[in-house]
């Protein structure tokens, strides 16, 4: 390595540093995100176009609450975007939020999908549903409870029980029926698995298409993406159908949120509020619906046709915050019944 290349690299790094400190200038908002940067960039580009405010982003898969907390008063973060309700609660527990006071938002986001104290707001919604083989599964309605029925023995595929999507579903089950019932149910579900949990929701569809199992559990948008956007995975969507399952007790389907938090130390609070309100606005909600295949939370925004083709969804009425409350219990039960073994 010559001196010249080293010097070049040092300059490049100074560039990196300069680019990142520019975030403190006017007209910007800094977002820490659990959503992948590529996925949300179109949204932020649209926001910048609408408002002239620049969005700086860093995305990660875990630990952002700790990062914000440790960075403390000097943290550049204004907004934390998450994809799971337990994480919204986690941000509250870590004491890194400040209430989002917005009458406008309260008018748009139904009370069920926001924190009573305004610490977080849901922006869009997804459901955890059944992917079923078109060929081998005749049923058009399935209850979550039924997944533990021995008639499915050796026929169910699922990703790790510790993955946050499953964790939230299991936590909802605990919230409805209590830990003892939930343990029985998980034991039954485990006994029905065709294979050890692994892969992701797309692999679940792939395994059903391949005939390894008949039904699986996945999020609403994965199937739609495979069907509409991913030519190489279209065959997996073609071999499967999506069934919106319900809890027998309530007749509702388990949903989870993409949500947003305003950080306690937000240096660009006014811009952050603009961004948060914009995310609940018509433009962003259309993007959530059509590019990300989520259920928009704002009334009057059309659900994407592919998602709508699953049938009309009746979101479970369980207060979303209840799910976060039982997260740990659900995780503990997964260990206890050896779900991932």
């Amino acid at each position, binding site marked *: 390595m010559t001196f010249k290349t080293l010097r070049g*690299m040092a300059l490049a790094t100074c560039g990196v540093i300069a680019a*990142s*400190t520019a975030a403190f200038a006017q007209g910007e908002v800094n977002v820490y995100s659990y959503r992948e940067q*590529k996925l949300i960039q179109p949204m932020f580009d649209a926001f910048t176009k609408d408002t002239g405010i620049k969005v700086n982003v860093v995305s990660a898969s875990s630990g952002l609450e700790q990062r914000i907390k440790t*960075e403390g008063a000097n943290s550049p973060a204004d907004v934390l975007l998450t994809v799971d309700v337990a994480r919204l609660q986690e941000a509250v527990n870590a004491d890194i939020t400040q209430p989002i006071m917005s009458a406008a938002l309260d008018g748009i986001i139904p009370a069920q999908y926001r924190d009573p104290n305004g610490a977080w707001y849901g922006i869009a919604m997804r459901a955890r549903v059944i992917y079923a083989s078109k060929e081998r599964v005749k049923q058009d309605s399935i209850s979550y409870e039924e997944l533990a029925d021995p008639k499915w023995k050796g026929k169910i595929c699922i990703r790790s029980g510790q993955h946050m999507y499953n964790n939230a579903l299991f936590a909802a089950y605990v919230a409805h029926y209590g830990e003892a019932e939930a343990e029985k149910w998980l034991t039954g579900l485990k006994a029905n698995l065709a294979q050890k949990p*692994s892969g992701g929701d797309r692999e679940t569809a792939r395994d059903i298409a391949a005939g390894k199992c008949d039904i699986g559990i996945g999020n609403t948008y994965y199937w739609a*993406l495979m069907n509409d956007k991913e030519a190489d995975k279209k065959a997996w969507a073609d071999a499967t159908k999506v069934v919106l399952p319900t809890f027998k007790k309530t007749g509702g389907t388990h949903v989870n949120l993409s949500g947003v938090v305003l950080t306690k130390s937000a240096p660009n609070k006014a811009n952050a509020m603009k961004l948060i309100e914009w995310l609940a606005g018509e433009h962003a909600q259309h993007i959530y619906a059509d590019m990300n295949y989520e259920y928009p939370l704002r009334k009057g925004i059309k659900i994407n046709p592919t998602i709508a083709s699953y049938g009309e969804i009746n979101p479970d009425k369980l207060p979303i915050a209840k799910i976060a409350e039982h*997260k*740990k219990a659900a995780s503990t039960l997964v260990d206890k019944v050896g779900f*991932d073994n």
Partner: protein
Amino acid sequence: MPHFFARPMRLLAMAFAVAVAAFAIAPVASLIRIALQGDAEIWPHLMAYVLPAALADTLMLLAGVAILTVIAGAGSAFAVTAYRFPGRDTLVWLLPLPLAFPTYIVAYIYVDILDSFGPVQGAARWIFGWRSAADYWFPNVRSIGGAILVFSFVLYPYVYLAARAMFQTQGAAFTEAARILGASHLRRARDITLPLARPAIAAGLALALLETLNDIGASEYLGIRTLTLSIFTTWLNRESLPGAAQITCVMLTLIAGLVALERYGRGARQFSSSDHKSAERVALHGAYGWLTAALCFLPVLLGFVLPLVFLAREVVARGLLIGFDPDLIRHALNTVALAAIATAAALVLGFGLVTLWRVTQSRFIGAGAFVGSLGYAMPGTVLALGLLSPLVAMDEAINAITQFAGRNSGLLIVGSGAALVFAYVARFLAIPIGFAQAGFSRISIEFDDMARVVGARPRQVTRAIHMPLMRQALWGAALLMFVDCLKELPATLLLRPLNVETLSTYIYQFATRGNFEEGSLAALIIVLVGILPVIRMVRHADAALYPQGEPMPV
């Protein structure tokens, strides 16, 4: 202790050692601080339901990877060093190339290739006329066996590089004497070459195993519940960061114990030969030659060629070159710059520390080197979490100073790429320390003494004797460190500043959505940037007169 330094110099040396060790110990220290925050009540649960299975899976994975990487790595290293056969000269530099692949990417690739809709099962169905996966049995890649294969394909080069450096420089005198006495070459390999290379193989293996232990992406995807994964689920799902820190501490203690044991076992058997003439390579003719070539090509095929072809095909099929993402250039430059700076810094710290250890023979500095190597054993995210508080503390100190000038500097380190450089150095410092130790172990201390006797100053000893003899070790360390930085994911993900991506985090955002193929071009760039230094190092090693020692990780 030989009095090489005058008193003030010695103090300075100590201060340097303390600084390096403090730097490396910072994440460990904050880890312990978090662990001490309590939550002991989670342990009965962990002991009953989590750790036994995690430990069993981890040990099985490590054992499998150990066996395969030694067979593939040491076997191929021995073959290309001891024999001449068709393709040998090409294989010498092809064999280390899988190192350039991030392990989790190879895991995704093999699941795609071997799963039900992949080309292999597709062909099998076509040939045998099966209709669905239910009609036949096919081994599942998403299993412990699959994981062992994937990790071994990617990680055997650590063993290969270490073993080859050793085989190359082993004094030919022993083997020649044995040959004159009539020992067959297999017997010479068994009784002389392999036992002498044992410490080098152990060192390369240690790196490979720690990488396996550290991994999260590949094991999670393949459904293996390793200890590292348990640390994550304990933190995120069982909602106990202290519990997660406690498991990490136990894991680190076990590793430190094992490493200390290995050092102790090796201590008595220092081997440095003044004879560095390599033995002649024996020609393998006909079928033997071709068979050897085929066997040596197998790990290259599985660890490098197939994944490379897969990525190239995805790049073309998805039009990633035509729809080239212009951001990729910026990401690539960031990645290379960060990796190069971290590598340079780690080389200075690591080699500096070990040089000091050498000239002062101080146990205290030795302990510093040992502690400085622990970062390699920590899962990257845990290390990043551990580094956050000390880095923020430094930022606040800087702030306190700049506030005199009436300006708030904000988070100068954490808010910039500097945090990543710190993280890379803390994570990979074991590499330069290990290489430096190995390099020095091959230079007899008598050289130093003689030079001192004729009146050379310590600095002159270092410049005239150590530097030229250590060049190989420096190159080796630089290469591994650089490539590891290019691939680093977990710490980068958590610590990078706003608007900065590296190639690794760029790929990850597709992978985490279950669509890693969209990141194929970035993966290909990592591999291409990574193989240049690999090839350069191998050529360098071949041309060198002086030996490269065995890389000792810790």
